[in-house]
C-alpha cells in the first residue's frame, strides 16, 4: 500500500472517534440515578400522589412548570386546578419544593444524569427559599 503508514493512522483515528462512547464506557457498570422521595413532607402523606398522575408528571412536568410561569407572571393567575379538580398554588417554591425539598436528590439527580440543562435555578433558589423549611 502506497503511504501505508498514513492510511493506517487515518483508520486508527477514525476507529477511535467512531467507537469513542464504547472506549469511554469500557468496563463501567452504568449506575442508575437515585430519585429520592424521602422527604419529611412526602413521608407524612397518607397517599403518595403528586399533583397529576405519575406518568404525566414524568413526561409533562416541564410543560406544567412553563405554563405556570407564564400564567403567574404574565396573566396574574395563581391557582392551578388539576385533572381531578383539586386546586394548587402555582408556585415552584411553595408547591413543588414544599414536598420535594431535596432538590439534589430529586430534581438534579435525573437532570444531571440525562444532561438536561434546566434554568429554573437561575431565578429560584431551590435550596433555601422554601417556606416549609424542609431543607436547611
Amino acid at each position, binding site marked *: *500500500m*502506497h*503511504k*501505508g503508514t498514513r*492510511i493506517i493512522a*487515518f*483508520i486508527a483515528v*477514525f*476507529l477511535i472517534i*467512531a*467507537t*469513542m*462512547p*464504547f472506549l*469511554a*464506557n*469500557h*468496563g*463501567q*457498570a*452504568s*449506575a*442508575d*440515578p437515585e430519585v429520592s422521595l424521602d422527604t419529611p413532607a412526602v413521608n407524612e402523606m397518607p397517599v403518595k400522589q403528586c399533583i397529576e398522575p405519575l406518568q404525566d408528571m*414524568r*413526561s*409533562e412536568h*416541564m*410543560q406544567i*412548570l*412553563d405554563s405556570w410561569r407564564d400564567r403567574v407572571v404574565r396573566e396574574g393567575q395563581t391557582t392551578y386546578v388539576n385533572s381531578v379538580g383539586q386546586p394548587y398554588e402555582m408556585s415552584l417554591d411553595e408547591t413543588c419544593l414544599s414536598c420535594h425539598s431535596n432538590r439534589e436528590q430529586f430534581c438534579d439527580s*435525573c437532570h*444531571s*444524569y*440525562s*444532561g*438536561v*440543562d434546566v*434554568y429554573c435555578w437561575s431565578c429560584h433558589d431551590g435550596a433555601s427559599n422554601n417556606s416549609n423549611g424542609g431543607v436547611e
Partner: protein
Amino acid sequence: MKIGLPLLAVVALAALAWLGCEYLRLQVLFGVVLPYLALLLFLVGFVYRVVLWGRSAVPFNITTTCGQQKSLPWVKHDRLENPSSTTGAIGRMILEVLLFRSLFRNLRTEKRGARISFGSAKWLWLGGLVFHWSLLVVLLRHLRLFLEPVPVVISGIGAVDGMFQIGVPVLFLTDITILAALAFLFARRVLAPRIRYLSLPADYFPLLLLLGVVISGILMRYAFKVDMLQVKEMMLGLASLHPQLSMSAGSALYVHIFLVSVLFAYFPWSKLMHAGGIFLSPTRNMPNNSRQVRHINPWNYPVQVHSYVEYEDEYREKMRKVGLPLDKEG
C-alpha cells in the same frame, strides 16, 4: 419513481420499526441486535473503503491548483490554493473539510443569447455547510446519552444550542437549521430541473433518510415524549456492551434508533462515504511540488530498457559498414 422509491423505503423502514416494537414487541431486535449490526457494518465498511482507496494507484501528481504556484521569490505564492508542502496541503484540507472552500467556488453557467455567462452560486455551499455543521452539533449533543457523567463541553454545547430558551423542552437551534438545510437540499433536487434530471434514487434516499432521522428525533422530544432516564440507561447499556432494554420507552425511540441504524449501515456503501473520501482525494491531499520532487508512480513495474549505448555496442560493426556516425569508435 426516482423520488417515490426512496420515499417509500424510508416510510416503510419507519413503519417497520413502529409496528415491530408496538405490536410484535421486537425491542431486542430494534434496540440491540440491529444497532450493533449497523455499527459493525459501518466500521468494517468504512475501513474497507479506505483501504481500497489507499491501495489504488496514484500515478501522477494531480493536485488541483487555483492559485500561483511557488516560484521565484518575488512572485507571490498562494500557499493555500497551491500548496507546495505537506503542511500547506494539510492546511488546505482542513479548510476544505471545515468550510467547503472548493464548493464556495461553485459557479452557475448560463447561456444568454449567444454568450455564455458565469455567475456565483453560493446556495449549495451555504445549505451544505449549515447541514453539516448542524449535524456535527447534533451528534455531539447526543453524546450526553452515552457518557456518564456528562462532560462539561457536551452540556455546554447543548446550553449554547438552546440559548434562546424557547419553550420546554428547550428548542435547539440546530434542530431548526438541520431541518431547514435538509429541506433546502431536497427542494433543490426537486425544483431545479437540471438537478432533478441528474438526481438518482441514491441521491434522494440519504436525504430522505436523514430527514426521517431528524423528524423522528424532534417528534420524540416534543410529541411522543420518551422517558429520558430510560433512554440514557439504554444507551449506556449499549455503549458498555451490557445492553439493557426498556420495553416501556415508547416506540418512537425505536423508530429513531432504527433509522439511525439504517443510516450507519448504509453509510460506507453509498455516496455518504465522501466523509472518508475527502481525505483520500489525490487532487486535494497532495502538495503541488512536481517541480521540486519527482513524483514516481509507486506502481511502476521494472521495465527492461535497451539504452543507446547498448544498441551501439550491439550494431557497431554494421553501423560502421554503412557509414553511420558512431558515439564511440570501438
